[in-house]
């Protein structure tokens, strides 16, 4: 137990410190790198609670793909952060409102489980014991049986978003050369090479 607590405080401290540094760092690329460190420690916290599948998916999806694109964009854009800072206070009320909502939700969730700790067992699909069932299997069972329609709808929403993004950025340019692989592969010596008999001293 002591070891778990030690690692909990390590991950939690680094997560909070690096989240703080995301806002504090002057260089936007450093901010994104600290954000990645925060994700990493969040994955560590998931591992400590026994949610190994979620931890790995957090790494694959957020750190391995989403944050790479973040980093990509931030490196390519030339953002003047001093200028952004000067107008940052205008957005403070909205930020504060979002913060209050999130804090209230956290209080409701955590307060609920503190007041009645057995609430986890009374829900429709009780959480299985980590020791008896790997949580990959448990999650798969729930997602593909009870919640299969919601799961499919979520996938459909993502598909629509993807098509939308492609449509927005698609442009057809004329007058450029494109490689047609099928044409290239279909070429044969008959269509590609012409054998010409050249008389010496005359040329073609």
């Amino acid at each position: 137990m002591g070891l778990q607590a030690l690692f909990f405080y390590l991950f939690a401290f680094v997560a909070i410190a690096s989240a703080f540094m995301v806002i504090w760092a002057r260089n936007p690329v450093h901010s994104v790198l600290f954000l990645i460190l925060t994700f990493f420690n969040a994955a560590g916290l998931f591992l400590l609670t026994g949610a190994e599948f979620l931890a790995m998916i957090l790494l694959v999806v957020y750190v391995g793909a989403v944050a790479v694109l973040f980093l990509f964009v931030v490196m390519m854009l030339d953002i003047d952060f001093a200028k952004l800072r000067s107008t940052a206070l205008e957005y403070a009320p909205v930020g504060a409102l979002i913060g209050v909502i999130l804090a209230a939700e956290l209080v409701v969730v955590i307060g609920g489980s503190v007041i009645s700790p057995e609430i986890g067992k009374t829900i429709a699909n009780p959480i299985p014991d980590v020791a008896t069932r790997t949580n990959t299997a448990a999650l798969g069972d729930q997602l593909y049986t009870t919640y299969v329609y919601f799961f499919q709808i979520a996938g459909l929403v993502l598909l629509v978003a993807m098509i939308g993004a492609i449509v927005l950025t698609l442009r057809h340019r004329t007058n450029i050369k494109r490689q047609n692989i099928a044409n290239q592969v279909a070429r044969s010596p008959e269509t590609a090479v012409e054998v010409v008999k050249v008389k010496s001293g005359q040329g073609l």
Partner: protein
Amino acid sequence: MEQFISTYVWPAAIMVGQSLLLLVGLLVFIAYILLADRKIWAAVQLRRGPNVVGPWGLFQSFADLLKFVFKEPVIPAGANKGVFLLAPLVAVTLALATWAVVPLADGWVIANINVGILYVFAISSLEVYGIIMGGWASNSKYPFLGALRSAAQMVSYEVSIGFVIVTVLLCVGSLNLTDIVMAQHDGLGTRLGLPPSLLDWHWLSLFPMFIVFFISALAETNRPPFDLPEAESELVAGFMVEYGSTPYMMFMLGEYAAIVLMCSLTTILFLGGWLPPVDVWFLNWVPGIIWFVIKASLVFFMFAMVKAFVPRYRYDQLMRLGWKVFLPISLAMVIIVAFVLKFMGWA
């Protein structure tokens, strides 16, 4: 106190000892893989390759190591110093961290975790950070272009690698790497009534995926013919232009550790890990680790041969191959494999 030692100190000491043993073995293996890479390349081009240091040049890699370590590291004036030095560390640490879950023989694994294959996939998807950070921190044009190319390339090919892994997992029904190997003990060949042999391994039952995985592994580790992030004819050396001495060596080490990992992963997923090719007594008697090393070395030999005789892809061809060829093939295979397993009742 005694209980503290037996619960914490002793297991920790065992784990550190195992890790050190694996690390030393791995580094020596990488040193000889590097030499083999250069020797095979040389042989294809009718050259001798490194042959001066030690008998047949066997100590070349160690001489190179000393050379790198004793050189002066140069940090460009315009570089972002912290990130510049952090990048090679990230690259090499992540490449070595993956090895914690790789089973080298039955039970020879440091951490036998439930989500082993996901862990490998997650950590190898992070390896792109070493390259992006190095390319950006150098504050120079070629490294930055190399880093951008690399990021796009690795993210693209991860998608098809992911689907290939899904097809294997469908056949196995577990994310544990040891289970994946054990499932290949009685696979397709056994179902057709043959004794356990190399026909049980996934390379046969999932043949197109084996090819897709091999080529994606080349692209994922920036090996030729997909070494566009460091294409010397276009970008000099890509993201590594500004690096020299020990930091450069660490990038190199990270790259080769990732390559050896991909060879081992191919062995585990498709070539039956440590299982002997035919079930006869004298082959069963050979330790599993030897089979594992032989198979991984064979896969690396294919990596080296591809490097020696396939010309480099153009960038748009690389992207076309990833998104328009491999992604549809692997997506279709996921569906086909799922249907076959369901209707044959093999799942």
